[in-house]
C-alpha cells in the first residue's frame, strides 16, 4: 500500500514536471535548440514604445519577422562598427544559404548627439537593410529594461580619471561633445511575436550567429 502511494506520488511529480516542460515549450513554439545564443529561460514580451523622428518605430516593427537588436551610439569608433560590419557578414551568409536575414535594429542610446538621419546614414553604410533609430531616453529605457541592457556616460575628468554617470545626468560643458558611452554589447534575438527570446554574448562570430539563425 505504502509502495503504491509512493508510485502515485512519483507519477504526479513526473507529470507536473512534464507539464512544466510542455508549458515552457508552448511559450516558444518555434525556437529550435540554439548552439551559440543564450536562450532566455522565459520569453519576455517587449513593452509598447515609440522611437524615431516621426514616432514611426513602435512594437509593431517586430511583428511577423525575426529581429536582431543591438544598442550602441554613432560616435562609437570600435565596438559598434565592428558589430555592424559583422552583422553584414551574417546577412551575406544568410543570403547565400537562401534564408531570410532577421531585420537588424541599431538603437542609439545617445539621442543627445545622434539624429535619426545620422543613424540612417550610419547603418546604411554597413547594409541598406539595417535600421538605425533613437528617441527620447524614457522610450529607449523601456526597451533597455526589457533586454537588461546597461549603459552609462563616461568622461575624462580634470584629474585624469574616468567618471561614469547615468546618461541623463548633467556633465561638464566641455565634455558635451566628447563623452563616451559604456554599453552592453549583447545582440538580442526577438521572435515574430515581439518576444525577446535569446541573446548572443560577445565576442560575436558571424559564422556562429548565422548557424543559429539558419535554424529558425
Amino acid at each position, binding site marked *: 500500500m505504502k509502495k503504491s502511494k509512493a508510485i502515485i506520488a512519483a507519477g504526479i511529480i513526473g507529470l507536473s514536471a512534464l507539464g512544466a516542460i510542455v508549458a515552457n515549450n508552448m511559450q516558444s513554439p518555434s525556437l529550435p535548440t540554439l548552439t551559440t545564443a543564450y536562450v532566455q529561460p522565459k520569453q519576455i514580451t517587449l513593452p509598447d514604445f515609440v522611437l524615431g523622428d516621426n514616432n514611426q518605430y513602435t512594437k509593431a516593427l517586430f511583428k511577423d519577422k525575426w529581429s536582431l537588436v543591438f544598442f550602441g551610439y*554613432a560616435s562609437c*569608433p*570600435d*565596438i559598434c562598427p565592428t558589430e555592424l560590419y559583422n552583422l553584414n557578414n551574417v546577412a*551575406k551568409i544568410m543570403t547565400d544559404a537562401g534564408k531570410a536575414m532577421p531585420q537588424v535594429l541599431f538603437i542609439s542610446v545617445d539621442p543627445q548627439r545622434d539624429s535619426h538621419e545620422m543613424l540612417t*546614414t550610419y547603418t546604411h553604410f554597413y547594409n541598406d537593410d539595417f535600421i538605425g533609430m533613437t528617441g527620447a531616453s524614457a522610450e529607449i529605457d523601456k526597451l533597455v529594461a526589457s533586454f537588461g541592457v546597461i549603459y552609462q556616460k563616461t568622461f*575624462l575628468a580634470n584629474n585624469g580619471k574616468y567618471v561614469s554617470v547615468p546618461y541623463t545626468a548633467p556633465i561638464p560643458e566641455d565634455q558635451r561633445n566628447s563623452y563616451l558611452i559604456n554599453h*552592453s554589447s549583447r545582440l538580442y534575438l526577438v521572435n515574430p511575436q515581439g518576444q525577446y527570446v535569446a541573446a548572443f554574448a560577445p565576442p560575436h562570430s558571424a559564422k556562429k550567429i548565422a548557424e543559429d539563425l539558419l535554424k529558425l
Partner: protein
Amino acid sequence: MQKSIITTLIATAIFSATPSFAAEQTNMMIMDAWVRAAPPSAKVQAAFFTVMNHSNQTIVLTDVEAQGFGRSELHLSAKKDGMMTMQKQQKVTIPANTIFQFKPGSYHVMLLEPNKIAAPGELVNVSFTLLNGEKISAQMPVKRDNSKNKMDHSEMDHSDIEHN
C-alpha cells in the same frame, strides 16, 4: 641576434605585405596597418595595426597624431562590469621581442575631429611619439575591413582601389 632574425622571418611569413614603417633607431616595425572606413557623417574613426618590437627592450608609445584629424588618442576597448568600455591610454607598452596587436575590440588609435572622414583607398599618415622621444610614422590605408578571407575579398570596392 639569431632570435631577432627568426622573429623577422616569422613576421615575413605572417605578413606578406611590406611594412608600413620600420624605425631606424628603435628596432620596431608597424605592419598590417589600416584605418576603418566610416560613413561620411561619422565623427570618429579608428586605426589598427601590428607593432613588432624586435629589440630586447620595451617600447613605450606615449602619443599619437594623425594627419587630417584634430585629435588622436591611444585607446583600449575592454569588457568591464558587463559593458564594453573604451578608455584613453596615457601610454601603451610593447614588451621586448613581441608582436603586439592593435585590433578591433582591443587597443586602437581613436581618430577624432576629422577635417573630413577618410574614405576607402585614402592613406592616413599616423605618427607616434615614443618614450625615448623618437617619432615614427606610418601610412595607414583606409579599408572597410582587414580580413583576408575569401568572403571579404569578394566585397572589396575595386573602384576605390583604382584611385589608390
